[in-house]
């Protein structure tokens, strides 16, 4: 049976790509917006992006067209438990996988074993554009 996705979730890799001016990422972002799709970015990915990237102005431009997913108490607990089960310290990857599963979204991020493992633990087939 074909798997379809309703939207996009950006991981840190997407934010880094935006910061370095990756034209494929910006073209994809434009396509999403013109299709009425507002990509979702979990708050921890934003924190990591602003920690590591000098061109935070470009990340800000990207976030102008994104929905920031702020974690509730329960969601933060679930992300932590998921990271533990996936045996990873990468809370951002766990959060991205959790949001993608819950909101039925494809993921734009760096290819990471933690992301795939977390998605598998959730019984969610990861649809990933790896940057």
């Amino acid at each position, binding site marked *: 049976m074909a798997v379809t996705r309703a939207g996009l979730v950006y991981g840190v890799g997407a934010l880094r790509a935006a910061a370095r001016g990756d034209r494929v990422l910006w073209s*994809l*972002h*434009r396509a999403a917006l013109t299709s009425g799709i*507002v990509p979702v970015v979990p708050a921890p990915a934003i924190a990591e992006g602003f920690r590591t990237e000098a061109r935070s102005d*470009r990340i800000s431009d990207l976030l102008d*067209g994104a929905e920031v997913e702020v974690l509730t108490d329960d969601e933060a607990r679930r992300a932590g438990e998921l990271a533990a089960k996936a045996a990873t310290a990468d809370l951002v990857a766990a959060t991205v996988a959790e949001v993608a599963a819950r909101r039925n979204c494809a993921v734009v991020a760096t290819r990471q074993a933690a992301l795939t493992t977390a998605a598998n633990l959730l019984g969610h087939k990861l649809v990933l*554009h790896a940057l």
Partner: protein
Amino acid sequence: MVSKRSVSLGDDVAKAVEQAAHEDGMSFSAWLSSAAERQLRVRQGLRGVAAFEAEAGALTAEEIAAGEALLARLLSGVSGVASRVTRRR
């Protein structure tokens, strides 16, 4: 804070909104507000894309088409790697 406005909708649109709001478990007003919020976010996001283009150069028609094709692939459940997409351009 909530601001009350009187708006006029075509009958068909109003019926469609009523149905969609019911399906989504929202009030008529909340559904309209959510739709407006989304549209404003899209508008603001396209300004962000324009800011990138002003600095880095406008996206070409080919790049825009590639972005649309990539979006369609992802929504249809097909994974991919950036370098492969880049090579196709």
